[in-house]
């Protein structure tokens, strides 16, 4: 019997989910390549968690098709559960139990032999460097250590797909980086597909493929480079005080520019009329200090969604 070759870890087709009159997910379609690091980017309430809850079989969809590792969600939900591990936004660890208890009990949820469970846990402990924490209670761990255990708990059955719902929310920048290195290590060493949701643009930038979701709809997708190329321009920052003569020259040159009060300089965008190098040469008499910057995911996000990312998350 030939085994069906599965190309995608996740395939979502025309997925719809509503809460009353609110369409949390509105006819979205995308796929996640096996072994890739996939980022689902969007502000809070964009529909990211709803989508992954459906993929994880926790939430029922209204319409559409979902396939995980080639398995149809409508027919093989129980089998899909064996193929995925999910790290929730809020930790689901039992605070009064030890790391060892948490992992051992979670491992019994899957029909694995005792030996297999032991082996899986030993591998994860080694991979995530948890050996010293095994006898400690979860309540005694730091935020970063808890996150590591959360990830380990999701991996006790060696899933093919690891889903992480905003894994670094609430962590300090240093711990966030540590978690990121860990996710990268997991993917490199296990070949597992990693599907993460995030509203941190710098996190999405490290993914192999990004899908941007806003108000329940996919509004852009591509690799981070593709998104930046498509939705941002490179620009020059010409540092200095406000200079009417410089502004007059820029207007005459029909440049797209503005003065940035925070950075104390003129931001001059790249356009088709001239290269950045030509601009620097052209306005060299007004420029003492300058910097050439590539467009960021932040810029791409603003251009894609039409609104500032921070505005949405905080407002």
């Amino acid at each position, binding site marked *: 019997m030939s085994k069906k070759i599965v190309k995608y870890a996740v395939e979502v087709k025309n997925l719809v989910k509503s*809460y009353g009159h609110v369409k949390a997910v509105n006819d979205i379609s995308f796929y996640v390549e096996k072994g890739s690091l996939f980022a689902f980017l969007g502000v809070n309430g964009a529909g990211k968690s709803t989508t992954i*809850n459906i993929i*994880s*079989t*926790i*939430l029922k969809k209204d319409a559409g098709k979902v396939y995980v590792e080639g398995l149809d969600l409508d027919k093989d939900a*129980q089998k899909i*559960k*064996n193929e*995925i591990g*999910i790290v*929730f936004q*809020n930790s*689901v660890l*039992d605070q*009064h*139990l030890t790391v060892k*208890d948490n992992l051992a*009990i*979670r491992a*019994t*949820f*899957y*029909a694995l032999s005792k030996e297999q469970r032991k082996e899986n846990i030993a591998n994860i402990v080694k991979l995530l460097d948890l050996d010293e924490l095994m006898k400690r*209670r979860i309540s005694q761990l730091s935020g970063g250590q808890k996150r590591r255990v959360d990830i380990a708990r999701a991996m006790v059955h060696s899933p093919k797909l690891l889903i992480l719902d905003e894994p670094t929310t609430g962590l300090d920048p240093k711990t966030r980086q540590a978690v990121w290195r860990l996710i990268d290590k997991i993917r490199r060493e296990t070949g597992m597909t990693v599907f993460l949701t995030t509203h941190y643009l710098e996190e999405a930038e490290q993914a192999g493929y990004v899908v941007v979701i806003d108000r329940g709809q996919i509004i852009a997708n591509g690799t981070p480079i593709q998104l930046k190329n498509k939705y941002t321009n490179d620009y020059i920052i010409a540092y200095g005080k406000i200079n009417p003569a410089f502004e007059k020259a820029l207007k005459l040159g029909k440049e797209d520019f503005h003065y940035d009060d925070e950075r104390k300089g003129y931001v001059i965008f790249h356009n088709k009329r001239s290269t950045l190098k030509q601009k620097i040469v052209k306005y060299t008499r007004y420029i003492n200090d300058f910097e050439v910057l590539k467009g960021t995911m932040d810029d791409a996000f603003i251009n894609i969604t039409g609104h500032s990312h921070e505005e949405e998350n905080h407002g």
Partner: protein
Amino acid sequence: MAKQRVIRMYNHEVFFQLTKRNFLVFTRNKMRMFFTLMVPIIILIIYILFLRSLELSSIREAINSIEGGKEIPDSTLLVLMDSWFLSGNVALCSISISLQTNNLIINDKENGINRDFASAPIHKTVVTFSYMFFNFLITLILSFAFVLVTFIFLACMNEFYLTALDVLIIFGVLAFIVLNASAFTTLICSFIDTDATLASVIAIVSACLGFLIGSFMPLCLMPKVMQDIVFFIPGTHATALMRFAYLQTPLAKFGSDFDASQLAILTNQVGYNLIFYTRDMLAPVELAVDPTLQGGTAIIPAIQSAVVGGSTLIFGGLNFFSRKNTVRTNIK
């Protein structure tokens, strides 16, 4: 066939591991254990400090209201009265402890742990009955501890007349009524989603249940309509069963000290015997004259056991149908 056997074994393993998990999560929080046991202990302290003398004088008055009755010493009345109250409190604590223990189910809903269960290939039925079994174990252990407290109290008061067989019967009845309480409270908690709601339910149940099932006061003191309604509460029958277990030997020992009318008052009015559907409210003198209890029906322990056992099966069945509520994920 072989595949089904593997699945069954796997479900058993998950059931025991989940029960173990629930047990560990609950017992490692020592404060939670302590406060759960405090409720019946506080009721016992209130009884010792305030209610004991009050109850004694009211029983003494009822017994002495029979003309030509025997003179009963307070020490004899106290043996029966203390056993009556303590057995009622044990029955009540089986329900109150069980309800408080289910705090774990609500916490699992609130903290999103149910989502983790939902994402794993485990059945809702297994999760639901692991909660129920865990609840049974914890409630049994804590109630057992409280029963030991009641034994110590009786011994300190020189009122311990229970035989080894009585003690065994008490523990047997305890396991039986705790199972009933666990099935009942797990069902109730399947409909509760927040800690705040559970706290309100515990407050209401703690305030009312002791009276409704006849733990704190004899059922015959209730309005007639309430007497008929409480017949349908399994806790009423559980209390009567526990009363039987605590009082049968002391009553046999001291019964001859009373005349027939006095004994009828003691056993019928204070609620050792369960009597339902009387024509009117029971009055001591009428009871003495009419041992058929004004047309009412006396519920014997065998019937009480059948009611408790039957309701346990019904609650267990309803838990099966309510399993989706028990492991609800509250995703919005």
